[in-house]
């Protein structure tokens, strides 16, 4: 086996208030790292975080305080050099670090430079909205003096107006030709990959480490996607299969309320799990008490307006009122199996639930009816969670405004026939984990898998819609 690649150390440096801590938060998917605020000097020390690929540490990132006094420091550094003496960059920096000012006026800058000398490279974070000034050039001259490769990272490029072109030009004039755009709040889906591959070009020796890291990140991303799809699919099947019996003579309204309550709680459970999966906090989404009441996006699941907002046409039964979102059926599920299902059951699975089938037949004879959640509500749930998944994937951990996912343009889900998986779940009351007769079956597993894939398949128009905003 080849020797284990060394851990790559990278310092994140830059002018004050350009989003260095934000970059670290987004790259480490850790929304609690350091302190972030729109003011200078928020970070006053060096703080590190380490990325692992397959359990092995591969990359150490160090957040540093902002450079604030570049012009004065460069002047001071030049004075440190005796006339007639030739000092190279790192030697000059070392002399500064050993001197008195490293603990005085330039204490913050000294911390940055000390860390940079220990690292293999630096990411120079730029707020692309700032103009290119002399102080930035002096700062870069000092940083370049450390003799480490610098990769300029243009932050805040997703929000015009910005001066990214101006910065690119200026960086090229300073000899920094490898540059990368990375918005810490709304990073591009392949933003991390771009950043690390550019870094790999500067660090030939560590290219293998970075390749391993990128492969691991891609695998993690895919795993997260699949897990998210499963969470939503399971939730939809649970709610689609949910049936509440209404015994003859019983008040329907109480049953409707119970049905709604169960559906709402199940959706909230799914939202919580999604947030945890993507390592976001409740505040990232729950600022408006979501998704159960209040607010626009947070509109109640059973409010007709919530359906209209998602562009779902209302069925004739779907009106505001006591029965909104629920459908009363004769007791037929399980008796109205499709032919294929029936044949399959005959070939194997009639044993399972045969006793329950008897109960159902009995219920039908007694004239019981049962409540199910409306198709329109299922569509709303599917669209809403799809939107949330979409938004979570594209959100940086530096973002501080709560998310407002846009409804995806999944016309098929909105208007077409209900996905097959959900229609099948409708006829299988025992598939709902909310039911006391819940029984897992291999078929449920297969259906959940298929539904998850359907939800993750991004129709092309959905992507276009997301980029347009």
């Amino acid at each position, binding site marked *: 086996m080849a020797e284990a690649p060394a851990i790559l150390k990278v310092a994140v440096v830059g*002018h*004050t208030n350009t989003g260095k801590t934000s970059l670290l938060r987004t790259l480490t998917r850790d929304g609690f790292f350091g302190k972030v605020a*729109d*003011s*200078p*000097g928020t970070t*006053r*020390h*060096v*703080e*590190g*975080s*380490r990325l*692992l690929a*397959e*359990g092995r540490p591969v990359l*150490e990132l*160090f957040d540093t305080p902002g450079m*604030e*006094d*570049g*012009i004065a420091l*460069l002047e001071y550094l030049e004075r440190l050099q005796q006339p007639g003496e030739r000092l190279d960059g790192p030697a000059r920096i070392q002399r500064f670090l050993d001197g008195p000012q490293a603990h*005085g006026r330039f*204490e*913050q800058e000294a*911390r940055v430079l000390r*860390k940079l000398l220990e690292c293999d490279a630096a990411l120079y974070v730029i707020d692309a*909205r700032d*103009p290119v000034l*002399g*102080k930035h050039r*002096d700062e870069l001259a000092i940083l370049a003096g450390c003799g480490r490769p610098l990769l300029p990272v243009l932050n805040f490029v997703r929000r015009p107006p910005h*001066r990214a072109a101006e910065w690119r030009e200026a960086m090229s004039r300073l000899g920094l030709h490898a540059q990368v755009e990375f918005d810490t709040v709304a990073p591009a889906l392949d933003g991390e990959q771009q950043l690390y591959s550019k870094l790999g070009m500067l660090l030939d020796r560590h290219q293998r480490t970075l390749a391993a890291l990128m492969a*691991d990140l891609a695998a*993690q991303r895919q*795993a*997260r996607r*699949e*897990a998210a799809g*499963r*969470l939503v699919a*399971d939730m939809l099947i649970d709610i689609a299969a949910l049936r509440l019996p209404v015994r003859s003579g019983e008040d329907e309204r109480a049953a409707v309320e119970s049905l709604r309550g169960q559906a709402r709680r199940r959706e909230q459970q799914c939202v919580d*799990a999604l947030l*945890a*999966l993507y390592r976001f906090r409740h505040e990232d989404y729950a600022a408006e008490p979501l998704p159960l009441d209040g607010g626009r996006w947070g509109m109640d699941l059973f409010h007709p307006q919530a359906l209209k907002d998602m562009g779902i046409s209302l069925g004739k039964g779907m009106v505001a009122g006591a029965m909104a979102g629920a459908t009363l059926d004769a007791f037929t599920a399980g008796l109205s199996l499709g032919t*294929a299902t029936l*044949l*399959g*059951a005959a*070939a*194997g*699975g009639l*044993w*399972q639930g045969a006793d329950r089938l008897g109960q159902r037949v009995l219920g039908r004879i007694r004239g019981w009816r049962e409540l199910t959640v409306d198709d329109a509500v299922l569509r709303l749930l599917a669209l809403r969670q799809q939107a949330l998944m979409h938004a979570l994937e594209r959100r940086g951990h530096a973002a501080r405004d709560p998310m407002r996912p846009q409804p995806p343009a999944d016309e098929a889900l909105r208007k077409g026939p209900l996905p097959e998986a959900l229609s099948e779940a409708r006829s299988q009351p025992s598939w709902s984990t909310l039911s006391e007769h819940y029984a*897992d*079956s*291999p078929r449920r*597993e*297969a259906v959940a898998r298929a539904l998850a894939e359907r939800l993750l398949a991004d129709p092309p128009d959905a992507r276009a819609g997301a980029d347009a905003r």
Partner: protein
Amino acid sequence: MPPAAAPDALAAHWLAETVRLREAHWGPLEDADAVRQALRHGGSFEDRVLARARVLGAREGLPATLRRWRHAALATLAVLGLAAVLAGAGAATAALGDGSRPTNVLWALGTLLGLHLLTLLLWLASFLLGSSEGSWLGQAWLWLTRRLARGPDAALAPQALTALLARNGSLRWLLGGISHAWWLIALLTALLTLLVVLSTRRYGFAWETTLLQPETFVSLAHVVGWLPAHFGFPVPDAATVRASDGMHALPPGARAAWSGWLIGALVIYGVAPRLLAWLFCASRARRGLRRLRIDPSLPGHANLRERLAPSVERLGIDAPDDQAYTPRLAGAGHAVAGSTAVLAGIELPADISWPPFSVAEGIHCPAVLDTREQRKALLDALSQHPPARLLLACDAGQTPDRGTLALIVELASLAGRTGIWLVRGASGPDRAQQWRERLAAAGLATAPVMTGTDDAARWLEHGDG
């Protein structure tokens, strides 16, 4: 993989799946200690999930539940096996009858093989229909065990087992194997019974019909006997078949031929296919059990990833924060005679035109300060001719940093009065409040801070805001 590893792996995965389902149904278990132990255990993410489940399961008493269920399942298997023996012996004796009258060969064949062939065909058809439920008998085994194993979490054990095996694809092979084993036992018992009874008692064989021709039976006996004949089983010849209409006395050779024919049919159409199917199912199930995996995308596992196999570790800070250096203006400027005024722009972006308004004659207005040299030039000029009023134009869109504030402080110390004009960054964020705070901290709390162009121009010319 050593042979002993397969059952251990099954037990470990079964337990992990039980824990997963339990957490999915009744909410997460308190697992701080289990996670710590799993992290200490090391290995891949899958190993850690298994280790965590082992700790949690032991705490919750799940292995006992699983053991109970396993015992119940074995007991059910034993009962089913006994039933198979009884069914086989019963079928064989029923097929031959009591010997008081000749055995109807077709009925005997149907009794011995009918149900078996029907269920075998249905099992084969389940492949075509894509149903993965397994077989009736296998399901019956599960159902009976469920009835037998009661107690807390009893329902979880079979649920976890079926979910685990179904994901792995080996459930149908396991249930199919049980079903085929049942039939194999029943058919072998029938065969044994047939051999014993036919060896020790005398039976006559006959066909009966009201509707069909004798020739039909001749060809039927040949068709049925064709395959067994390849394996050395006798087939009654045409004359014997024609003679076996129940009206003629049969020679002893004919009885032997008929019983050989019946035994051959039972072996070749009964025992052999079931044996092959059982071997096939058993080998597939074995292979499946060796390939048990933790699926990291399952709800319940996905959320464990960051805790069991963290992708990020914090490294801590280099040193605690020090008192930050803040440039500070000593004193409040000094009196300067005259009414000279200077307008200076500090680090303004190039897209703000400079000067921004027509400056009255006599007011000095150097280029926007950006580089060290420009700073130095203005400082030199001011120290030679201190102005009475110094107006500094700053970009409110930028972040006020220490370097800029140090420059402002240095400039202000050279002038009589200093005013700050925050040029609205027409683009970008507005950080005017931060400027005010930082200016106040730098000792410029009394300096007028203006935001309007008119205010700034008036202050510059007349000294009032």
